[in-house]
């Protein structure tokens, strides 16, 4: 079932290393995202899959066939670009049909396939329009249809939504997922937007400085980040340096306050320093009687973020953020007031590196 395989991919431009020892196996029909900040090598990796860049070493294999040195126009890979890249001189129909025309298909066949693709993206009516007559979101839909029209073995999307407005981005995201699932096409999606990656992907490859940081499904990536980078890049996070008190029971302390950690502190020594992370939404105001992880805090600031209210609070000498949903019945504490907050011992992460 392995469809696409990248083995020991390495790419350098002169002295600078863009991608380092990249290994990944993608299953037939899987939706994989490359997530990372700009310059992390995600786009370079995608371009090596597309054939626009050649790896310095390593191999790209699709369906068991080595593609590493196959030119891009012989790969049968569909590509969608951030800038849409529709051909301005062609109508929507001509754009969508271009790959079929190049492949030498008959007029009828092209016509039929174009109609089918336009109906898939729900843009039948735009058949004879030119790209400049379309909005950005519509152009990107057409670009998607164009890439899919040639029935590629692989669909590559390079930050396809970055140039669009928030509302259209949200809509088109759902559209992409719907079409991908309907066609069952193996897809690689490059993005720097964690929400896009989390909401779209079967699996996410988090990258930083040319290296893979973590590969996992959205739930794993968000809730069990394996490195400090992943924890910081995906979602927001409170971090604090704590000292190991009891490795066996999983207790560490900061500012003289003890913390219980469900995952434990195996392999750490007493007195060793560890980085502890807690997501803001894992805190709660103390509602019932509890013993573990109850903290006295002073409220520093309260900020509305829309559906979420962020409470900034001081526990010991450290500042933490707590997120709660914004609701009219919410009784917000006063700034400067003393409160008690708690978090589950499962919510406390110990970060590597």
């Amino acid at each position: 079932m392995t469809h696409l395989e990248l083995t020991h991919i390495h790419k350098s431009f002169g002295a600078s290393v863009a991608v380092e020892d990249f290994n990944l196996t993608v299953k037939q029909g899987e939706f994989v995202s490359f997530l990372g900040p700009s310059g992390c090598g995600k786009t370079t990796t995608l371009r090596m899959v597309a054939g626009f860049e050649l790896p310095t070493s390593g191999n790209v294999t699709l369906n068991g066939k080595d593609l590493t040195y196959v030119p891009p126009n012989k790969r049968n890979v569909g590509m969608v670009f951030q800038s849409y890249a529709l051909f301005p001189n062609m109508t929507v129909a001509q754009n969508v049909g271009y790959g079929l025309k190049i492949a030498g298909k008959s007029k009828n066949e092209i016509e039929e396939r174009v109609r089918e693709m336009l109906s898939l993206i729900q843009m039948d009516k735009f058949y004879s329009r030119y790209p400049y007559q379309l909005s950005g979101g519509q152009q990107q839909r057409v670009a998607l249809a164009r890439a899919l029209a040639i029935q590629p073995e692989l669909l590559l999307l390079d930050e396809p939504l970055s140039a669009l407005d928030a509302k259209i981005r949200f809509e088109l995201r759902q559209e992409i997922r719907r079409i991908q699932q309907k066609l069952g096409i193996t897809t690689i999606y490059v993005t720097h937007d964690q929400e896009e990656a989390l909401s779209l992907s079967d699996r996410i490859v988090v990258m930083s400085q040319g290296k893979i940081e973590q590969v996992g499904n959205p739930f794993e990536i968000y809730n069990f980040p394996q490195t400090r980078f992943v924890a910081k890049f995906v979602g927001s996070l409170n971090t604090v340096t704590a000292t190991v008190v009891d490795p066996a029971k999983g207790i560490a302390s900061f500012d003289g306050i003890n913390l219980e950690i469900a995952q434990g502190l195996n392999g750490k020594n007493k007195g060793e320093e560890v980085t502890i992370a807690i997501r803001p939404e894992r805190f709660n105001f103390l509602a019932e009687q509890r013993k573990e992880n109850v903290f006295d805090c002073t409220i520093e600031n309260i900020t509305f973020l829309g559906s979420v209210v962020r409470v900034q609070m001081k526990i010991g000498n450290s500042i933490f953020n707590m997120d709660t949903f914004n609701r009219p019945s919410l009784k917000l504490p006063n700034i400067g007031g003393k409160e008690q907050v708690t978090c589950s011992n499962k919510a406390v992460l110990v970060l590597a590196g």
Partner: protein
Amino acid sequence: MDEIMSRKRTSFFTIFWGILALLYFFLPIYGTLDFSLRMERGILGFKAYKIIFADPRFWEGFRYSVTMAVITIIVSAAIFVPTIYWMYLKVPQARPIMEIITILPFVIPGIILVFGLIRTFSRPPLQLTTSTFKTDILMIAGYVIISMPYMFRAVDVGMRSIDVRTLTEAAQSLGSNWFHVLADVIIPNLRLAILGGSLICFATVMGELILADFLVRPALGPYMVRLGLTKAYEPAALAIISYSLTWFSLGLLQFFSSRSERQKQQVITT
């Protein structure tokens, strides 16, 4: 109230500059036109034009210059479109060098350029002035250099307005080879730019004087100068004919560009 004043001031300045430009450009043209129609004392008539159109040397020069201009355009476009495309795609860092090279004909006085050409190619080992055919090749080479800045700039601006690299990659990922990328995607989107460069090219060659004069070829430029030194009314008529041709070309260009200007802009802003 203040806004109305500001509006008025704006349009005052616009009109002021507009009228000044009109006077600056069209007073000479009007003068020439008026003069060209006064060959027969006391009446306005087309006598000067009739004389010119009856002169076989005019037609010879016209035909020769048009032929040269068309060949120059074809050679220029064939050289510059693929070269600039290649530059955009593969060696964008070569752009400053290209710019300097193509600005040279602006900066180096025309006479000097011509002197250099003639000096080099009228002696062995590259003697090109021995037959009219070889001389015409030299003419074309010179015209290509002289019109290079216009062609380069026009194509360069055209290339810049499309995303050459991404369009190329999009076409490649759909199965296109280099030939198809150029023919289907790049050139159709540069049509207007190439047309604009060609028109200016055309006008430049039609009016070129020194090269044709020194290489003793029957072009329109030297004919006009000779006429200007010996006649009074005919050169004025010739000037008006040349103006009309130019305006006609410019009108064509404007017609095509305004039709697709909106396209381009919208493509860029969306």
